[in-house]
């Protein structure tokens, strides 16, 4: 059995310099860390869970195969928000049209990876861990970034997932992202006297691995809770965000970014894209919610001069089959599209051509761009880290930022 002594993990943790679990000194430590390069560059990841149907989001509205394959669920040409001669946006995705017009979005078509997996969990794990399809990793790509490939990642809230629990993407070998649904709730929970007493209670004896993990998580949480709470009070957004989960979460992210919190990565999730059945209503409701929330977010950051420091990546674990199924829905597919948004994009509009619907792989869109090239571009060109250390392989930059 592997034992980690409490003393040892306290030493190993970022708090070694502080030497105590008292809060104010941590805060000082964080403030010192914040004076670092690239600290202003933010990455916001939006995950569409369930497999968003890319073909009904970015619509190839002049393609006969598209309409023949989807007699009951295709977006009719007259409803498509046309972008160029072949591609347009789902009518509910107004945010993409607006950002397309202002040069603030880059859309990558046919994104995927070799030997695509059509299981939600496996494919999501592949996206989270940036593994090959036959390779199993237990750490996420952003977790490995935190693990030592960024200079000022020592604070536990360097990457925040706005959620009750933490995704694999943000789990590293030594470092983890920080799950936080709401700063006030988080702060409140660390204030109880017993929690404070447990945290300050030192034991010299060895802990079983899981217990050691719990103590470490406790120390990190207390250290970050007050910091985030204080930051969250600095700025209250004046922009009207839509009701609903994503609107609320993006508002929280915008407030922390505008308050210049010492957090670089934010991660939010929108669920419900597994549309096997009566797809159109479900997907359009989700896309509309995304569009409205994202529009408010962009407006908020632009009005506060933060948009140029922000890069937003929206992805899903796979696209869906080209042909609709028997229940006005679509089954799990492969190639999809991915959106990058920000004020400093070097490539704007469509990064590449739309999908080839004649040459399919098992009925699915074939990938032409590996998603790990997107990660490598973000790591190298935006976060300024050694991408091949995080990705364990070299992937060419796509040069979009």
């Amino acid at each position, binding site marked *: 059995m592997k034992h980690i002594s409490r003393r040892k993990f306290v030493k190993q943790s970022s708090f070694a310099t502080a030497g105590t679990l008292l809060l104010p000194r941590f805060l000082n430590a964080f403030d010192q860390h914040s004076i670092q390069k690239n600290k202003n560059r933010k990455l916001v990841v939006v995950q569409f869970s369930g497999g968003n149907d890319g073909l009904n989001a970015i619509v190839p509205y002049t393609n006969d195969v598209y309409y023949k394959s989807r007699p009951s669920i295709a977006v009719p040409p007259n409803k498509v928000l046309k972008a160029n001669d072949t591609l347009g946006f789902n009518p509910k995705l107004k945010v993409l049209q607006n950002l397309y017009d202002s040069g603030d979005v880059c859309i990558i078509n046919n994104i995927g990876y070799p030997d695509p997996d*059509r299981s939600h969990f496996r494919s999501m794990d592949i996206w989270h861990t940036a593994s090959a399809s036959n390779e199993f990793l237990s750490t996420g790509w952003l977790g490995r970034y935190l693990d030592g490939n960024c200079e000022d990642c020592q604070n536990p809230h360097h990457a925040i997932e706005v959620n009750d629990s933490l995704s694999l993407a943000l789990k590293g070998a030594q470092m983890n992202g920080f*799950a936080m649904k709401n700063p006030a709730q988080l702060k409140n929970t660390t204030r109880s006297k017993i929690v404070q007493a447990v945290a300050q209670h030192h034991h010299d004896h060895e802990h079983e691995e899981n217990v050691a993990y719990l*103590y470490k998580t406790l120390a990190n*949480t207390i250290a970050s809770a007050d910091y985030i709470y204080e930051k969250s009070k600095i700025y209250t957004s004046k922009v009207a965000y839509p009701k609903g989960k994503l609107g609320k979460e993006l508002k929280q992210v915008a407030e922390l970014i505008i308050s210049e919190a010492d957090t670089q990565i934010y991660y939010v999730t929108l669920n419900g894209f597994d549309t096997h059945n009566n797809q159109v209503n479900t997907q359009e409701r989700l896309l509309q919610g995304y569009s409205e929330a994202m529009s408010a977010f962009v407006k908020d950051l632009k009005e506060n001069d933060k948009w140029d420091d922000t890069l937003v990546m929206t992805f899903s674990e796979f696209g869906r089959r080209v042909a609709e*199924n028997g229940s006005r829905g679509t089954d799990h597919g492969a190639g999809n599209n991915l959106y990058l948004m920000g004020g400093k994009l070097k490539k704007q509009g469509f990064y590449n051509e739309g999908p080839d619907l004649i040459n399919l792989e098992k009925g699915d869109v074939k990938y032409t761009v590996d998603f790990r090239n997107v990660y490598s571009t973000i790591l190298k060109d935006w976060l300024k880290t050694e991408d091949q250390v995080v990705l364990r392989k070299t992937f060419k930059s796509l040069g979009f930022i």
Partner: protein
Amino acid sequence: MTEEQKIQHLYWRAGFGLSPTAFQKKRKQPLNKIIKDLFKDAKKIQPVQRPDYNIPSWDVLKVMSKEDRLKKTREIQKLTPEINLNWVRQMTSDDYSCLQEKMTLFWHGHFACESKRFDYAASQINSIRQDALGNFRDLVLAISKDTSMILYLNNQQNKKNKPNENYARELMELFTIGRGNYTEQDIKEAARAFTGWFSDRGTGEFKFTERQHDAGSKTFMGKTGNWNGDDIIDLILDRKETATFLATKVYRYFVNEKVKDENVALLANILYQSNYNIGTMMQTLFESDWFYAKENVGVKIKSPIELLVGMGKVLNLQFGNAKSVLFPQKYLGQILFKPPNVAGWPGGKTWIDNSTLMLRMNFAAVVFQRVELALELKDEPEEPKSRQLKNLDISGDIVALTKAFSKVKLANLGLELEAYLLQTPFRTQDSFIETLAKEADTSEGQIKAYVLGLMSLPEYQVC
């Protein structure tokens, strides 16, 4: 490892820990008798009760206006948490077989499925219960015909010439044989075999619809025939990999997340040779020496249900309404009948992150507040700020606890309570918990202080 420690370990894994009364009764019994009794008690199937609500028949429903019908459906859906409540009450009570409850909970996570209606939820959990220690073949067949599952994984849309692969894929990937042991083509063929396996929308029961069933020839895992769903299940169970997949999952849940191949192989062999008798495998597991090895004790992070029910047993918690079980589940991240996805709750360290850990550590204080066990100490637990937690209709007492520890000398109270409540040492002596406890004037006050302190510890989160 003392016999008493072994008994506690057994009860944490085969159940939810011991109530103070059961602890007193069982602590001196021989381990092999306790194991036999656990399996004997589990034989009597005790289904979860449904709330008193008359669901109109389909004949009545179909002549209703669309709005009235929707209203009825909403009423039925709203009652699903009542099944959750009744189940948690059963798990908490010593009047029910803890092994039967634990096995049912395990399979509920294995055949993860969201149930939207109380009647579907009840019938699913009770049919799982029926076979929870029985034959896996019966269990997986019952699940394949279960209304909640048919709706959840879209088998209702799996029709002849228009197959929907969802159920066939998850059946193999998650429920039986596991990844790497089948091809995409196998999934397509299996989906055809399950065409026409529908739920009757009137009765909510399984209905085989022959005209939607593809009776044609299928080649599945290298064998060709006019397979139907039963045949597919048989063909999957014929493969030894299925037994290994299930034994691995059982081992990770009941023994240790870190798998020991030789122990899993032993369990897999027994499962396979017994023609998938789950009870036989489980009894072997609980009778094995390695199950009680130090490396397997106190190393599992409790699931939110294990935590909640375990506290319930110690403090005789009575859950007053559905909200009183639903809110803790929601806050701690495990809502029965609402798994995150078809892969179920991943468990282990994934239960824990900064936010759920705080909630767990504060939860004992919340419960103490709710059951008016508040201490007259200088260091009182914080009032829960959340209105929902504040208004939880939970009551409880420390009557049984006080009785069980009444003969213990004050000087030993901390040690004895630690031994009862924790599966991994904390060293209560000279700790802040002892300081807190010593501020109390009465032995009852001391017991409360120790229990609250111990239940708030990271050490209490493991079993």
